[in-house]
């Protein structure tokens, strides 16, 4: 029976090629626009570390007071040196790291090559196990390296390729800002998007890579300046990098791993206690106003998903909706034009369900055709998002099997849904009336 309906549907569609083409085009464009924006949205709203994001937390400490808070009462979105080092010293989470963005120069061993600029972060040794950073060679550094301000470095595989031709460089030395650092680890490909450990400075997405990680205190001692944002509520009293460290200016990111609800509560209490201590010591003239957000909450709070991406998705879904309304109208016209044919079939004993089967098959074929066109247009769309979206975001949009299947599925299901009402109307055709009027 299905083969028969398929044949009927194809004949019917061939009879009015213009109308059929219209429906297929509408579905194709509607689905392709939605799927292309969905591919971008999916890429930027994904969880960068799904297996662990619920255990990672970002604390915020209110060191500026009521006048420095955002409109919704939030404290600064970064930490000053005093608070960041105090939290590291107290070490109340299982793993934690303060970090700041750096952009030092690296001098290649060969004299003929020009120095290069690399970006990276100054972090504590716990950064690597906390974020499950994959290593190609070696590993991160130890707590004693942190304490002793060891001259060690972790480099990316890209920098390892550039400086050491991709060989195991653990134990070799790298010249950073004209000082030698011993390589202790080489990262495997690791470039999470969004760059969740420091979204305040990365803005979320960054198509560049992070090439060096230095111990926090080593970098401070070597006067490697912070390359990220510095926000101050007052001009630092002392000059220079040391002045910045003694000021209330915020420029340090912080992340802590808290494995269960009890640990979270304990850490929250600890932050409360810390802020109260600062209040009693006279540093804060206000009640504690801390925040402790899990990584997903933090990404949301910092608006990591650009609103343009969301608006594009919304508008594209609107387009799909219009295309579907359009398809309902056209299918209705098409089906009711064949009222006499339906009348004959019904009079010859076809039940309503047979009419449903016949016309939904026809709608399904339109859906499949629209889906195939949608697939082609989605491929073209994903390939060309680079023209209309920022490079850092566009490069994340990918075409994969699940997206292609989804495209086809959305096209077929949507068209069948659109076909429901016209089919219902077709099934209600009165056979007697149709036969009489003929």
């Amino acid at each position, binding site marked *: 029976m299905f083969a028969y309906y398929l044949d009927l549907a194809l004949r019917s569609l061939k009879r009015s090629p213009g109308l059929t083409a219209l429906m297929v085009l509408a579905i194709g464009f509607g689905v392709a626009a939605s799927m292309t924006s969905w591919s971008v949205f999916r890429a930027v709203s994904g969880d960068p570390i799904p297996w662990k994001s619920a255990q990672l937390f970002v604390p915020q400490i209110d060191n500026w007071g009521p006048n420095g808070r955002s409109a919704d009462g939030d404290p600064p979105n970064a930490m000053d040196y005093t608070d960041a080092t105090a939290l590291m010293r107290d070490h109340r989470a299982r793993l934690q790291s303060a970090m700041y963005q750096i952009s030092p*120069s690296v*001098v290649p061993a060969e004299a003929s090559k020009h120095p290069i*600029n690399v970006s990276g972060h100054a972090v504590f040794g716990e950064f690597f196990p906390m974020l499950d950073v994959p290593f190609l060679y070696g590993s991160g550094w130890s707590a004693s390296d942190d304490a002793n301000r060891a001259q060690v470095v972790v480099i990316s595989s890209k920098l390892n390729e550039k400086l050491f031709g991709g060989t195991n460089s653990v134990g070799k030395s790298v010249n950073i800002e004209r000082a030698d650092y011993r390589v202790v680890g080489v990262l495997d490909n690791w470039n999470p998007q969004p760059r969740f450990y420091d979204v305040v400075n990365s803005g979320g997405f960054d198509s560049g890579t992070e090439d060096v990680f230095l111990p926090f205190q080593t970098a401070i001692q070597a006067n490697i300046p912070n390359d990220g944002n510095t926000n101050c509520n*007052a001009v630092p009293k002392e000059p*220079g990098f040391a002045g910045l460290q003694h000021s209330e200016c915020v420029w340090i990111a912080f992340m802590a791993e808290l494995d269960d609800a009890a640990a979270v509560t304990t850490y929250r209490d600890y932050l409360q206690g810390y802020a109260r201590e600062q209040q009693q010591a006279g540093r804060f003239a206000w009640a504690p106003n801390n925040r402790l957000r899990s990584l997903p909450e933090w990404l949301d709070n910092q608006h990591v998903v650009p*609103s343009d991406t969301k608006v594009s998705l919304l*508008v594209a879904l609107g387009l799909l909706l*219009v295309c579907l309304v359009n398809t309902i109208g056209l299918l209705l016209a098409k089906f009711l034009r064949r009222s006499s044919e339906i009348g004959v079939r019904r009079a010859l004993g076809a039940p309503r369900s047979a009419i449903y089967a016949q016309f939904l098959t026809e709608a399904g074929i339109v859906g499949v055709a629209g889906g195939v066109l949608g697939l082609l247009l989605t491929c073209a769309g994903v390939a060309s998002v680079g023209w209309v979206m920022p490079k850092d975001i566009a490069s994340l949009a990918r075409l994969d099997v699940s997206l292609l299947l989804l495209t086809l599925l959305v096209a077929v299901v949507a068209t069948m849904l659109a076909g429901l009402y016209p089919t219902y109307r077709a099934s209600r055709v009165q056979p007697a009336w149709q036969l009489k009027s003929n």
Partner: protein
Amino acid sequence: MKLHPMIAALRKHKAGVVLIALQIALTLAIVCNAIFIIGQRIDRVNRPTGLDEGNLFLATQQWVGAPSADTPDGVARLDAMLKEDLAALRNLPGVASVAPINSVPLLNSSWNGSVSTKPDRKFSDKGDNVRTTYYFSDENVLPVLGLRLVAGRNFTAADVQHQGFRDNPPRPIVILTKDLADKLYPKGDAVGKAVYIDGSGSPSTIIGVVARLQVPGSGTWTNNFAWNSTLVPTRLNANFSRYAVRTKPGQLDAVMRTVAPTLYKVNPLRVLDDDSVKSFGDIRAKAYRADVGMAILMGVICLVLLSVTAAGIVGLTSFWVGQRHRQIGVRRALGARKVDILHYFQLENLLIAGSGALIGIGMAVGLNLALMRYYEMDRLPVLYTLIGVIAVLVLGQCAVFVPARRASNVPPVTATRAV
């Protein structure tokens, strides 16, 4: 022509009428908001920076193992290195003028603070402070950037100081943009008056006012101080430096190519990469890439939307014309002219599209409110809604024309034929 029989006829096609009206309403709602987004982005991109943007480029470099900018000795050495670079660039053939500068408009790297007409203000005293961005440069900044002085005078070489990147020495003189000067001194008599920088207790005298100079930040967060710039006659000494260079007309590309070799010749221990030498045109394009992209995207979506809706109207009207073949014949036989039939379908479409547009206005406003609530949009001006309404009505008329003309060509003899 009477509307009554037309409405009566439409009641026979309730579903089709509702679907077309709904489609037109949705189209209107989306198109209004999309065109509004396009308009806003175009406005943003067309904002003048205040610069003479042709023949201008920016070179950024970083010294390797530079002396510390935190010690007086280090600052002196960094300043000597900076001056060497400036001299080398100035001597390049094709260069008109060069200025050291910490940033330029649209570069998205900025030093922001606030100025006040009163001393010792805290940052938190929001009322007395006006937000501003600082440009640190020398006496060449006006000719290099092509800024227009509207009052007072430019800096002279004797005015120019130098300082370590993180130091905060007193700043005896500044030049402000007109926007900022007018906010501080609304009477327009800012020249010769004092401002206090970042809550400082020591005054800075305003020696000049330039017509316009945009801040480096191009994001929406700078919207409320986009033209509030303060020029400080100071060379900043850090481990990196930026040079704004104005070339003689037509020599931009040639000069840009010689920058890296020239600077390496002065001192090879520095970092210069592909991104280091950028024309202002490239800086502008990068800053507004997302805005231009969004405008193009919205434009494409509008186009697809309008085409789909037009096609839908053609399809459904054609169906109705086919259905009413006989009635049309009867009308023609009873004396209706071709043009009457044409007008009938046109008016019918106007009626449907009009009611769709009415619903659409409500939906457009609703969508706009939702976008405002969640995505920092502005209120949709009435003008855009009107443009949208006119657009969908015209679209409806264009779409209905072909099937309506086909209807008007139905010969009167159809009436006599048995179906």
